[in-house]
C-alpha cells in the first residue's frame, strides 16, 4: 500500500444521461510513468479532473499517497503538480510572474527555485516576456514548469504534447523522461497518442467509453518477452536451457520452444544451442507492439502519430 501514490476506486461520473466514467479502478505506483491512454472522449480528462477535485465524482474514492481527496483535499493536493490540457496562463503577465503567482500558494518557494525550474524547461531567457508572446511549445514547457514548482511527488499531465510539432513533442517527452529519472517524480500522463506512451511510460491503462479495458506493463526492448525458438529438437533444447537462470519461463510450442527472457539474450541462447548440437531454424521474439495490442483492444480508435 505504501508504494501506491494514486489509487482510484470505483470512480463514476455522469453528465446528464452521458456516462462519462464507469467504475474506474486503478493504482499508480511510486516511480511509475503511467500512461492513461484512450481515444478522444473516452473520459480521460474527466477522470483527471476528478483526481484534482475539479469535477465532483458521483461515486468512488480517490486516494493520493494515502489521503482521500474528498476528505483531505488540501493535504492531498500539496503532493501533486498538474498541467490540465492546453495550459492556461495570465497572458498579460510574464512567464516568471505566472510561476510566481503559483509559487505564492505554497510555502518556501523562493525566487531561485522559480529560476531553477525555468532553466530546467529551457525558458530562463524568456522569463521576462509576456506569455502572450510565447509559442505553443513554450507554453507547454511553462505549464510543465508550473506543474513542478511545488516539488510534487505526483505530476498529472493531460495531453502534454497536444498541439506541438514533432520537434516540440520530442522535447517535452525528453523533458518528462529526464525528470522521471533525475527527480524521482511519478508521472500520470493522459494521452491519446500510442507512441507517446510507448516511448515514455512503463505502465499503461486504457480507457474506452469511460471504462478501463486494459492495464498492463509496457514491453520495452530491454524488458522480458516471449521468444519462440523454431527447432525439431524441442525436448533437448528445453533440457539445455533449463540451466539458464535468465530464462524465467519455458514451454513446448508447435514450432519448437517458447522461452520468456530478455531479447538481448537471443544471441547467447542461439550460440549455446548451436554449441550443444541443436539445429535452430529461427528465433522469433513476440512481435506484438503496444500499437497492435491496443488497436486490437479498442478496435482501432487511436491516433498513431
Amino acid at each position, binding site marked *: 500500500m505504501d508504494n501506491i501514490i494514486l489509487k482510484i476506486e470505483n470512480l463514476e461520473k455522469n453528465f446528464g444521461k452521458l456516462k462519462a466514467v464507469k467504475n474506474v479502478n486503478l493504482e499508480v505506483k511510486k516511480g511509475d510513468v503511467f500512461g492513461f491512454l484512450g481515444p478522444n472522449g473516452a473520459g480521460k480528462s474527466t477522470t483527471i479532473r476528478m483526481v484534482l*477535485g*475539479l469535477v465532483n465524482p458521483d461515486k468512488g474514492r480517490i486516494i493520493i499517497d494515502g489521503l482521500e481527496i474528498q476528505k483531505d*483535499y*488540501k*493535504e492531498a493536493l500539496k503532493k501533486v503538480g498538474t498541467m490540465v490540457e492546453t495550459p*492556461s496562463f495570465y497572458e*498579460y503577465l510574464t512567464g516568471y510572474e505566472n510561476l510566481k503567482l*503559483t509559487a505564492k*500558494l505554497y510555502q518556501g518557494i523562493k525566487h531561485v527555485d522559480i529560476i531553477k525550474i525555468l532553466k530546467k524547461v529551457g525558458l530562463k531567457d524568456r522569463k521576462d516576456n509576456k506569455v502572450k508572446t510565447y509559442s505553443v511549445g513554450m507554453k507547454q514547457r511553462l505549464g510543465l514548469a*508550473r506543474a513542478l514548482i511545488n516539488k510534487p511527488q505526483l505530476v498529472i499531465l493531460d495531453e502534454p504534447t497536444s498541439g506541438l510539432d514533432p520537434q516540440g513533442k520530442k522535447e517535452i517527452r525528453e523533458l518528462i523522461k529526464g525528470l522521471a529519472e533525475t527527480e524521482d517524480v511519478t508521472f500520470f500522463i493522459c494521452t491519446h497518442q500510442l507512441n507517446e506512451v510507448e516511448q515514455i511510460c512503463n505502465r499503461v491503462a486504457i480507457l474506452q467509453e469511460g471504462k478501463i479495458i486494459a492495464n498492463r506493463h509496457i514491453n520495452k526492448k530491454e524488458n522480458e518477452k516471449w521468444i519462440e525458438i523454431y527447432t525439431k529438437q524441442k525436448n533437448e533444447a528445453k533440457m539445455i536451457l533449463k540451466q539458464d537462470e535468465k530464462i524465467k519461463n519455458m514451454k513446448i510450442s508447435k514450432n519448437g520452444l517458447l522461452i520468456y527472457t530478455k531479447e538481448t539474450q537471443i544471441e547467447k541462447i542461439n550460440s549455446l544451442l548451436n554449441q550443444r548440437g541443436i539445429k535452430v531454424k529461427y528465433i522469433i521474439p513476440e512481435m506484438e507492439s503496444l500499437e497492435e495490442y491496443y488497436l486490437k483492444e479498442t478496435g482501432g480508435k487511436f491516433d498513431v502519430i
Partner: protein
Amino acid sequence: MLFSLIKNEYYKLFRKKKIYIFAMIIAAMAFIPVIINTIEEAGINFTVNTLPLENLSWSTEMIIPIFIAVLVADLITNEYQEGTFKLSLVSSVTRMELLAAKIITLVSVITLLVLFTMMVSYLSGAIFLDWGIPFQFNNVTLTETQGILYTFGLYFLSVIPLSAFGILIMFLGFKLESGGSVVGLTIGIFFIMNIIRQLSKLMRPLVLSNYFNTGYLLSSDGMSDKLIILIIVSLVYGLAFFGLSVSDLIKKDIVK
C-alpha cells in the same frame, strides 16, 4: 493562504489597465463640476463642502456599478472561460478559500474606488473652489473637519450596498459565459432596479440601488432608522447571493 490569494488577485488587477482607466474616468468626472462652476450662465456654485457630495451621487449611481461588472467579469467569468480559475484550485486551495479571496478583493477594491472619488473631489475642490457655507447637520453647523468626517462616513457607508451589489453580480458571473454578458446584464439589472425605484414607492425600499448614494441620509430626519434599513437590505442581498454562490461553486464541475 487567504492572504496570498488576495495578494495574487491584487497583483493581477494592478497589472491590467482597466482599474487605471476607471480611476482616470473618476478623476475626470470629479473635475467636471469644477469646470461647470466657472460657467456663470450655469448658475451653479459648488464649494469644497458640496463637491464631494455631488460626486458621491454620480460615482455610486453610475461609474462604480459599471466598474463592479467589469471587475466581476475579470475576477470570475473571464478567468473561468480562459481556464485560469482552476489554477489556484489545483494548487491546494479550496473553493471556499478562493471565493472568499475574490469577495474580499471585490469589496476592498470598491472601497478603494469610493475613497479615491472622495479624495479627488476634495483635492480638485481645494485647488479650484472656495470652502463655502459650512456643513450643517440636524441644524448644527459643523466645523470643516467635522464636515469632512461626515462626508467620509457617507462615502464609506455607500461601500455596504455597493458590495452587496457586487456579490449579486458575482453570483451571475459564475453563471454567464462571457465578460461582456456580465457587463451587459449588470447594466440591465441596474436599469430595472432604477425603474422600479422610480415607479413604485412601495418597492423602493427593497431595491438595492436605492441605497448606493448615501447622500440621502443627510437630507432629512431619522438618519439612524435609514441607516439600519440600508444595512439590513444590503445584508439580505449580500448574504442571499453569497449563499447562492457558495452552493453553486461547491456543486460546480469545473470543466474549463
